[in-house]
């Protein structure tokens, strides 16, 4: 399984000279499975560059949406494969009692917010609510579970052979809870992240910023590190960077995260900040931690 980060920013795109290294595009992660199948995790503005990189391939791809906040779907109408008649796109996402996934996404892909409607997309697009039970895409087993965030929100786990990726970009597991003290089965998202080869997890706020954002659905640095430790993931990438954080501030946050991780007994190289453009090849879990390329 190969992973490439196409957008690591949260909330709103934040391009500019101060965000060049960690990137300004919003959430999107490309996953290439062992048989070459392609998945996109979320469709923030980062998916535009993913679409451009795909050229005319592949004919079929899956987009797994964690939720429908704009920073996770904004790139859909700028995703080049959606405008190719030969492409089949399957969009997965959370169910809601209010409306179907298609109808909820159509609120964005419709006038006056969009120049095209869902029905006008040239590609063959379908929408599916994620089932509770594990399902398969190509050689991978996919699991989705609701996690603590605002509104119906999923985290995903993708197992392909012996390697596994857990993707929980918007997550506040410490809301009203002490995740250092709770039993493991009572921690939001931990069942997805446990023993993952690579965990991509919300790390939006510094510890100093978090008290002013309790209940906003995101994690502080300390909470993210605690969650990663409880999950025993081989490697963790802190993701969904706050749009106000510059590269220099993220450097400092990354240093603090690594120090906190090591103090908690984490392995060297097990904690870092997600940077747009970074690529990872996930080895089997018994081998060494995910290697950056």
């Amino acid at each position, binding site marked *: 399984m190969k992973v490439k980060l196409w957008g690591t920013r949260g909330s709103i795109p934040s391009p500019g000279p101060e965000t060049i290294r960690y990137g300004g595009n919003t959430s999107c992660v490309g996953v290439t499975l062992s048989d070459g199948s392609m998945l996109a995790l979320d469709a923030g503005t980062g998916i535009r560059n993913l679409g451009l990189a795909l050229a005319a391939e592949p004919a079929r791809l899956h987009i797994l949406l964690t939720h429908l906040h704009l920073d996770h779907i904004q790139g859909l109408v700028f995703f080049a494969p959606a405008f190719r008649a030969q492409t089949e796109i399957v969009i997965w996402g959370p*169910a*809601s009692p209010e409306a179907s996934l298609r109808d909820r996404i159509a609120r964005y892909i419709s006038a006056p917010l969009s120049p095209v409607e869902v029905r006008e997309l040239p590609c063959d697009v379908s929408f599916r609510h994620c089932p509770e039970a594990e399902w398969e895409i190509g050689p991978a087993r996919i699991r989705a579970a609701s996690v*603590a965030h605002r509104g119906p929100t999923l985290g995903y786990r993708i197992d392909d052979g012996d390697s596994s990726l857990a993707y929980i970009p918007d997550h506040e597991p410490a*809301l009203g809870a002490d995740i250092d003290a709770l039993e493991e089965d*009572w921690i939001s998202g*931990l069942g997805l992240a446990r023993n993952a080869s690579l965990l991509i997890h919300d790390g939006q706020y510094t510890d100093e910023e978090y008290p002013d954002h309790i209940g906003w659905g995101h994690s502080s640095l300390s909470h993210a590190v605690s969650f990663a430790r409880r999950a025993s993931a081989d490697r963790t990438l802190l993701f969904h960077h706050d749009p106000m954080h510059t590269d220099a501030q993220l450097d400092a946050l990354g240093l603090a995260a690594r120090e906190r991780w090591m103090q908690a007994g984490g392995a060297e190289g097990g904690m870092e900040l997600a940077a747009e453009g970074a690529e990872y090849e996930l080895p089997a879990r018994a081998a060494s931690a995910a290697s950056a390329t």
Partner: protein
Amino acid sequence: MTQKPLELILARNLMSALSTPAFLVDEGGVLVFYNEAAGMLLGKRFEELGTVGPDEWGSLFGPFDESGEPIPYDELPLVVAVRNGRPAHADFEISSVDGARHRVEASAFPILTAHGSRGAIAVFWPAGSSNGAGR
């Protein structure tokens, strides 16, 4: 490890912050949590008791009707809520570990999601006590 559904996790988090006695069962009727206020009412903290199966918890603390007879398990609001997916309300007496009787009103409601039932919550409103030990 089986991950608890998010709805139960959030319910427990909320209940932990309440001063009102509250009980939480999963979709199978297993008592998976009650808060500190409920522990004070019962005279036993949840951490001391742990999870209790659906056939056991109903008899641990009563409950009793006005004539002092045990109320059938199937008629308890929490059981009605989790089995029928409907809210339920009742008043009855419960017995704490020291033998004191507490008259309570109980309101239970199901936790329903797009994927079906996750369980139910019951909130107790102490209405006095037969031996004056009400909260």
